[in-house]
């Protein structure tokens, strides 16, 4: 009792004097759960092959990561944040306000979002318009008028007679997910732009445009299956008529169980995503605080490893993990910029 009391006091004391002795000597990375599986692989290899400690990678989501990243400079703030979208102007402003004025942007490659079903069934093919009509909360009435009605479609055949006569049931991520953001922006918006009167709203009434194009139905046609893409893959294997939405890396790792549907006639394959032909793909980035380079040991070396061809090149180890690499000339230019620590916007 006496001993544990004394130990407790010592511990408390150490808590409050901690900032004095704990100069962080490892890289701290936060951000997107989509980039996490790639960032961690690089971090692990970097830790094993260099004299530096293995960087710590947190999965906080792109928005959460940028918020932490922009909270200030100093060893209690992260050095790098991963993002499955580009940094927004509002976030750059927040960073600047907190003293993070110099940011280096690094693009690492692409990720496709797939619309998939179980492998033992026929491979499907949809247009983005059909996906929009199947999943949106409000859709234009079928008679061609500009009136929006609550989504009446129950089966795929009702949307397009050429499709299967199976009920619409799509498993996908919840609103907190970056995958969902990207899916909504690329597939749903792509589909709703097919209606000229909705497209016109984008300029005249952006809020309404967003509400129409980004609103997913809540009557059971779209099922929020949680952030866990593995769970969606497992559920698809068990239920024959449903489709799922998840990142390409999960398709790549589970090709014996699920298959990606064609979207606008393009199959989600490595080559199609890399050439940007597949419509639902996005670029992946991370952002580095220049003020931390040279203070936290190993950042320069980590950047060199991450932008090297053996990591993100066409035959790199991240390609084996399902990331879609950019072409070699672009990678070289980007690696040179990163080496020179060229700032965002320059």
């Amino acid at each position, binding site marked *: *009792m006496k001993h*544990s*009391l004394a*130990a*407790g006091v010592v*511990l*408390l004391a150490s*808590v*409050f004097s*901690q*900032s004095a002795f*704990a100069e*962080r000597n*490892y890289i*701290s990375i*936060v951000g997107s*759960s989509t980039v*996490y*599986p790639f*960032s*961690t*692989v690089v*971090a*692990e290899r970097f*830790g*094993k092959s260099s004299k530096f*400690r*293995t960087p*710590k*990678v*947190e*999965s*906080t989501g792109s928005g959460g990561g940028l918020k932490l990243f922009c909270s200030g400079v100093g*060893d*209690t703030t992260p050095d790098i944040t991963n993002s499955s979208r580009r940094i927004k102007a509002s976030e750059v402003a927040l960073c600047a306000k907190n003293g993070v004025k110099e940011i280096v942007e690094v693009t690492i490659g692409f990720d496709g979002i797939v619309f998939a079903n179980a492998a033992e069934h026929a491979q499907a093919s949809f247009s983005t318009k059909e996906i929009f009509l199947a999943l949106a909360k409000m859709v234009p009435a079928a008679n061609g008028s500009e009136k929006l009605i609550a989504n009446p479609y129950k089966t795929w055949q009702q949307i397009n007679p050429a499709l299967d006569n199976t009920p619409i049931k799509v498993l996908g991520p919840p609103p907190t997910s970056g995958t969902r953001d990207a899916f909504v922006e690329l597939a749903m918006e792509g589909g709703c732009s097919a209606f000229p009167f909705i497209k016109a709203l984008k300029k005249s009434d952006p809020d309404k445009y967003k509400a129409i194009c980004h609103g997913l139905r809540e009557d059971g046609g779209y099922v929020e299956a949680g*952030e*866990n*893409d*593995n769970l969606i893959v497992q559920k698809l294997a068990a239920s024959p008529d449903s489709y799922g939405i998840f*990142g390409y*890396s*999960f398709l*790549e*790792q*589970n*090709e*014996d169980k699920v298959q990606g549907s064609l979207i606008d006639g393009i199959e989600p394959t490595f080559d199609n995503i890399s050439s940007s032909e597949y419509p639902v793909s996005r670029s992946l980035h991370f952002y580095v605080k220049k003020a931390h380079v040279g203070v936290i040991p190993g950042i320069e070396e980590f950047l060199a490893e991450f932008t090297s061809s053996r990591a993100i090149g066409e035959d790199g*180890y991240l390609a084996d*993990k*399902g990331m879609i690499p950019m072409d070699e000339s672009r990678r070289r230019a980007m690696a040179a910029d990163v080496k020179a620590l060229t700032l965002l916007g320059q």
Partner: protein
Amino acid sequence: MTDQLTTTRSKVEQGMARRRRAEGRFRLYGVLSVGFGLLCLVVLFGNILSQGSSAFRQTVLQAEILLDQEYLGLNNQSPVNELRNGNYEGLIKQYLRNTAEVSSRSERRALYGLVSVGAHWQLQDAVLANPDLLGSTLSIELIMDDNVDQWFKHERDEGGAGRLNELQLGWLEQWVAEGRLKSRFSTTFFTNGDSREPELAGVHGAIMGTLLTLMVTFLLSFPIGVAAAIYLEEFAPKNRITEIVEININNLAAVPSITFGLLGLAIFINIFGVSRSTPLIGGLVLTLMTLPTIIISGRAAIKSVPPSIREAAFGLGASKMQVVFHHVLPLAMPGMLTGTIIGMAQALGETAPLLMIGMIAFVVDVPGFITDPSTVLPVQIFLWSDSPEQAFTERTSGAIIVLLTFLIMMNTVAVWLRRRLERRW
């Protein structure tokens, strides 16, 4: 008179059958609910054990590799950093090329992909441990890639191919026939930290993180909790303020645990600048969470000490301090310890508050001190369940088995302590 008696009796007898039936039904409900609970438990354990037991086995390839001094450019006098940088990967590739026939580049890639990317670290470790091995032939069990591992453990019996192609299956079947490809107990699962390669991922880092976090939690929450319980029960004046404090402690015990995470983020990280993702901050937050449990159980334990003990001590002239510390506390200790262990077991399984303070992180290095970045077991389970590679599914169940073992151990200690130290009056 007798008439009345018979009517009463007949009324009772009429109702008797109904009352017996009611009792019978009630017993049946009881048995059914206990049975349902047990069934759920059996299904849960059965499911986890059947999925997770294969995580403790690893497929390996028995290989005889010549540690060629000329090829590596090393000898047993070379300095450590040269030994570390040797091209062990090349040695393994060379070995594989000699053992299977390959021609094209894509075939070579397929062949190299069968062995784990971590296999050359096995060679490196062996050489670093004993540089005299250089120049001799090393007999080693090379760790295979997770695709091979999954195929060998699961798909092979059903004739499936998993994620392997025809060519790879041909090589593997040949190695199986030669008795070189085999499954052995996976020590890496217990000695490695996290990894993105399922075959190299282990729970050692998470276990160390859990132990360090629980140590911080225990060292802080036990003395504070016990002191608070003693003060509130024995010394505090019975007035409004004490009452408010008591009510609030009881309320805190029912607060959702994620709230403590937010509190920890706001106070410990933002104000005191404790670094994120360390056992220290994890322990501090879990202390907040377990304190109410410890205080409440501590007070109950003090209350259950019979007044006669106190009165006897007072009668012999002991001061209040002496009564409490010499007589009441020793008798109340078993109850307090039980409460503490149950509080710690609760903390062991917690992820929600840790979410806010950055412990949901990928940490490869095994933490050695409370300021090193680390994660804990339940977080490790969460992270693995979210990984794309199929082999992580069984690792997840494997880690759950480890976590359950810990929980059962802690609860057994709690029961044992209670049995051993408890006194009856």
